[in-house]
């Protein structure tokens, strides 16, 4: 028995150390989300879906808000609609003693909608996503995420790391997507995205009162931590048409939330044609930079207006 335990322990130790080493190689190229769970707690956050994850660049915005150190804690339509799981993750990500942070809360109809397969008291679909199952949002390496939520083979931790062309998450949370642009490929992507979102509208039930409730709850919480801005990021006209067919009252609902919570609402839809999209609703890198600057200026302006009054 002693020999068995000895050999097994030694073998397990070698294997365990190997696993730990592989996991320690995980970085911003591992997948679209992992690195966000490894950075320390933050004072200021950008929150939302993949449009915000790709579109808003903290390194640009932090030039305007030097004392805020914005961090992009946005994920995707599927994983981070507003609700219990995302709210909790956000609260865990904020430094407890923060009181003068800056919070950019990006909204679109999908992040406040329910899927059809949720009936009655069934949990929201994101309850099984990594936002719910990843216990800690600020440790490195984040074993909880890598063991329970990483959706690819572990070999991809190594292969992705070696692939310089790969999309990756920066240290400030911004998700940079590298797409080799050509007009044909962009148009193909846009057409595919429009088709898939037209199908998607049938899977959703419409704007959810429960999710609106959680959005409001989040805003109220964040107001105690600093300044909050509701932002609707631009998308192309085709996508806007789909969203307006899905929910024509979305803007009005957000304006009501803005009034109710006394939080500014910045809507970039009127300027949507000034930006370039990789697929109709995600900004390319240059447009993301441009939008980040524009948003920063708007926030600065609003801050100045508030100080005057």
């Amino acid at each position, binding site marked *: 028995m002693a020999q*068995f335990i000895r050999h*097994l322990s030694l*073998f397990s130790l070698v*294997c365990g150390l190997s*696993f730990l080493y592989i996991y320690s190689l995980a970085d911003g190229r591992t997948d679209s989300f992992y690195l966000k769970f490894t950075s320390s707690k933050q004072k200021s956050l950008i929150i939302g879906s993949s449009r915000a994850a790709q579109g808003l660049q903290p390194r640009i915005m932090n030039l305007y808000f030097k004392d805020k150190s914005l961090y992009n804690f946005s994920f995707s339509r599927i994983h981070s609609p507003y609700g219990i799981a995302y709210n909790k993750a956000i609260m865990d990500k904020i430094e407890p003693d923060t009181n003068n942070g800056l919070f950019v809360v990006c909204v679109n109809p999908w992040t406040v909608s329910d899927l059809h397969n949720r009936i009655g008291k069934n949990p929201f679909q994101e309850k099984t996503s990594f936002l719910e199952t990843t216990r800690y949002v600020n440790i490195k390496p984040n074993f909880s995420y890598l063991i329970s939520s990483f*959706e690819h*083979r*572990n*070999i991809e931790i190594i292969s992705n790391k070696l692939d310089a062309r790969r999309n990756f998450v920066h240290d400030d949370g911004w998700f940079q997507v590298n797409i080799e642009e050509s007009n044909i490929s962009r148009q193909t992507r846009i057409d595919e995205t429009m088709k898939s979102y037209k199908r998607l509208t049938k899977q959703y039930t419409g704007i959810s009162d429960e999710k609106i409730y959680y959005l409001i709850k989040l805003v109220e919480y964040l107001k105690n931590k600093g300044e909050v801005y509701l932002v609707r990021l631009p998308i192309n006209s085709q996508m806007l048409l789909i969203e307006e067919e899905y929910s024509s009252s979305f803007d009005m609902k957000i304006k009501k939330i803005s009034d109710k919570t006394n939080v500014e609402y910045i809507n970039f839809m009127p300027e949507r044609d000034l930006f370039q999209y990789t697929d109709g609703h995600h900004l390319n890198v240059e447009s993301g930079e441009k939008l980040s600057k524009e948003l920063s200026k708007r926030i600065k302006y609003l801050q100045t207006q508030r100080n005057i009054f």
Partner: protein
Amino acid sequence: MLFNSIDFAIFLPIVFILYWFVTQWNLKLQNILIVVASYVFYSWWDWRFLSLIIFSTLVDYLVGLQLKAFDDLLKRKLLLWISIIVNIGFLGFFKYYNFFVANFVDAFTFFGNEIQPNTLSIILPVGISFYTFQTLSYTIDIYKRKLEPTSNFIAFAAFVSFFPQLVAGPIERATNLLPQFYKKREFNYHKAVDGLRQILWGLFKKVVIADNCAQYSSLIFDNYTEHSASTLLLGAVFFAFQIYGDFSGYSDIAIGTSRLFGFNLKQNFAFPYFSRDIAEFWRRWHISLSTWFRDYVYIPLGGSRGSKWNQARNVFIIFLVSGFWHGANWTFIVWGGLNALYFLPLLLLNRNRIYTDIVAEHTMLPNLREFFSMLATFFLSTLAWVFFRAETISKAFDYLNGIFDWSLFSIPEIRPSFLIILIVFFLVVEWSGRRQLYAIEKLWLKYPKPIRFAIYYVIVMVIFLYGGKEQEFIYFQF
């Protein structure tokens, strides 16, 4: 808890340490620990169904004792029927109630009478198809006077609930497993190491082969109308490896885990994809279930005795019942029927027992005839698996129709090279170990320990790096 989960990785060492360091002095304590650990293991799935397995254990324990107490044939038959009704009753209700209601309604609707179905939201208790058959074998063997009943309730409860094989087999016979609970188990280094080796190979089959094949077979089956014939065939092949890797992998882990605790379970898969005909395939696939049906259904029906008509009838009954055992869906019944059609000609021509040895037993490679026989048998079983995988019979026929098309000679659109390489490696190892109980049982034993450990380390790292997205074991749904 799944065998390839963190929960089990924590559970197993705890039970192992308690078993060999705390309870090893006393047989009763050893068995009590097995029972407690097994009930904890089962409750992890769903504690509500623990009462079912405990009730089934109690009924069969008491029936067993009463069968010994009575000589009167009528009373003995009555007792046996109590056991059958309780076990099959549970199985029938939890697994087949909605199926029968739905088909009853469909039949009435067909004749123009609409009736409101009264289906229930019934959850299938994990393992019920396995442990009910296991306890039935106990009472039936006592009835036939092949086995003495046990008065040791703890030993019997341990036999029924033994956690390595509780939820997905192998379905153990009381004549094999129960006596092992009457003797105190002593730790044996080589047995334990052998157990770990079998667990390792089982994990490789499940995590690397089955889970990766599952990803691609689902991709192809879920969108089968959009793919070429060659892709559909590849999808069916992936499913064939998925179900083999999944089920035989689970069996390997179950058998290996049992050996860690000093128990010997029967081999459940004997390299079925190296079979030269369908009859040999069914002697090598899910051996514990097919022998159960042979001994408790086929032989009582008359088996291979009597007229050709009786033989054919018995074969069909066995395969249809076996198909139905797998699930409450017509696809499983058709799958069973198709296998019966494959098997019948061999039986009727008395050619069902020509391959009872191991293929290429004394050579390294098969000869051409053996190779093509294996290929043909694999192809037939793969086509049958389409029914097993498809959601409905019509989708299965559509899928098969899609395979028989000129695009069969085109290159498949989906061809994950890493998986194909892994499958080739897997087949080479399985082929090399086909004479053993499991592929790597004796494969590298001639090398010194450091080399062997290095090879095992490589297998562990392949499992860690190439393990597919976690899928539940297919047979848990049965």
